[in-house]
């Protein structure tokens, strides 16, 4: 039975049609989150001209770049948050969303990430954690599990991974959460919350990578089987509190970890200008 074709309304409204289909591998979670992001833009009624999509280097960054109809600012590897700092301070009225990956954000971009959180820069960071360097062909990442045999750890990874959410929380982000790409309603809710926050919102999304992490590390290359694996290994943070370290090994703990209020960097600059004005 031949099915009729229709271009997805969000694509028609918000994407450059000459850039579709986008670059993702079959079953990649990044595309799902892009859809969630467009849903949020649509539901919140954000003017596309005032929504700046900032990216770094990696699959998560290549996908929205020049696909989104508005301003697409693609920095060098790891520097998206540094660029977003200048951009947001110069134009505080813009909604800035940063798409980054586990390598881009936590490895080469680590320093900028820590300080963007510390400064409470009012941008929303979506960190796609696929536990691997996908775009460059499957090298180890700061979030790759111990023992994993990647392209650059052929005998098994001898370094412990670390937790981006804990880092963001310790560094001062006002909203920190983690979901998997298969939790679109949660992601949509978190994106809305993050965009509305006065400060740095960090949304980590475990993204199945069928081509690299799935195929070579988990030995699961099929997107559907990877979806099943992901959902089987996802643990809600409340449940995780009752589990042992062994039980939590290699599990993806999801939930909202931080949701606080404090002045954003933009607010502090505004305060500073007032202070200086009064002292003149």
């Amino acid at each position, binding site marked *: 039975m031949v099915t009729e074709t229709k271009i997805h309304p969000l694509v028609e409204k918000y994407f450059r049609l000459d*850039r579709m289909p986008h670059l993702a591998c079959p079953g990649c979670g990044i595309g799902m989150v892009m859809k969630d992001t467009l849903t949020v833009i649509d539901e919140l009624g954000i003017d596309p*001209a*005032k929504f*700046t999509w900032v990216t770094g*280097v990696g699959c998560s960054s*290549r996908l929205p*770049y*020049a696909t989104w*109809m*508005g*301003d*697409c*600012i*693609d*920095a*060098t590897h790891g*520097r998206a948050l*540094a*660029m*977003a*700092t*200048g*951009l*947001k*301070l*110069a*134009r505080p*009225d*813009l909604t800035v969303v940063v798409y980054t990956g586990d390598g881009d954000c936590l490895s080469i971009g680590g*320093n*900028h990430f*820590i*300080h963007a959180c510390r400064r409470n820069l009012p941008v929303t960071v979506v960190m796609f954690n696929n536990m691997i360097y996908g775009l460059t062909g499957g090298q180890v990442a700061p979030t790759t599990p111990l023992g994993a045999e990647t392209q650059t750890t052929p005998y098994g990874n001898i370094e412990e991974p670390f937790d981006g959410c804990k880092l963001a929380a310790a560094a001062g982000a006002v909203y920190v959460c983690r979901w998997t790409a298969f939790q679109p309603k949660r992601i949509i809710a978190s994106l809305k919350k993050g965009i509305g926050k006065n400060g740095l919102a960090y949304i980590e999304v475990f993204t199945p990578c069928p081509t690299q992490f799935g195929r070579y590390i988990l030995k699961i290359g099929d997107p559907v089987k990877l979806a099943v694996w992901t959902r089987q290994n996802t643990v809600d943070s409340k449940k995780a509190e009752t589990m042992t370290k062994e039980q939590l090994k290699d599990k993806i703990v999801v939930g909202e970890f931080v949701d606080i209020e404090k002045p954003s960097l933009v607010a502090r*600059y505004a305060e*500073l*200008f007032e202070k*200086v*004005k009064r002292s*003149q």
Partner: protein
Amino acid sequence: MISDVVKEGMYFVQGDMACAMGAIAAGCRFCSYYPITPASEIAEAVAEMLPKLGGIAIQMEDEIGSMHAANGASIAGLKSMTATSGPGCSVHEDGYGWAIKNEIPVVIVDVQRAGPCNGVATLVGQGDFYQARYGTHGGNYEIIALSPSTIQEAFDLVIEAFNLAEIYRSPVIFLMDEVIAHTREKLIIPPWKEIEPRIVDRIRRPDVAPKDYASFGHIATPEAISVPFPAAGDGYGLCLSPYTHDQKGYPSSTFRDQDRMARRLIQKIRANIDKLVKFESAYLDDAQSAIVSYGCSARSALTAVKRLREEGVKIGFFRLITIWPFLDKQIYELAEAVDTIYVVECNLDGQLAHEVQRAALGKAEVIHIGKAGVEMHTPDEVMDVIKKHTAVSSRR
């Protein structure tokens, strides 16, 4: 009010302060930096002055962050700058290359110090001459660099640097050195109504409607200058990335796009070199030899020329103000006019000398008068080399 912050008057200040004041006069409203001697004073000055005008001064976590933040602010419509020294520039190159490729107007102040590597933080060097031009990888570009030789010039010339950044949509390196940065000298700031007409504003509105705008539509005319640069949030759908791109800014891997992109980055400066040339010369009419120099070294060089002239030596003086693009034509003409060119610079590997040698095309003998740094040349040191060389040459 700008005139309350950059007040008309006579000052006795360091070059760093003059540079900061000139940048603000030029319209800079964003400065990102990381503390580094001998440029920290620029950061400290802007941190105090910019908030009075609602401008952003931000100390970033490192120089890479500083460079990228300055890029981000420029994309958002502000005239922006960053200030550092050699080690900071080494670390900048990532963001510097991004700015070159995406044609971002931004000023980078490099206050050179003794090197290589950390060298001596508080003392002079002039070893970043080539780094300014070639520091970022990949080739396929030209850049603009200017260098002041006095504190007054540090003020006036940085305004020119900001102007060139706008006209050429390019990063401009303001190549200072520790001597100019830390020396105190007279600075005269004229009334604001005399400064204002000198400033070139950003052209933010392209000629086409937002829906027809292509981020790099202008690369079809490689020599075009004063190309509009709409800001993020203006509704033009900017596509700026580190990749080779087509006219829309979409990533491309075709030879055609690579070639076209490279030609644009090179030609916009090379084709307009005559507009960019700035130099100072003296005593050249009957000169049989000449000194070529820039920055702090040119001060000793000029004194040496004056003293040698008093002793009857027919020597001339040529100071580069535009460092890059290199003044090939002017150096060649000088080489045709004289027998010997002495190049005075504060590095021992001979960077400016190398360029002068290249541009002279064998028309004159080129002698490098170098010094490793920490100290700049004294006029006597310059004169000694010239006299010895003249004595040797005349015995041949």
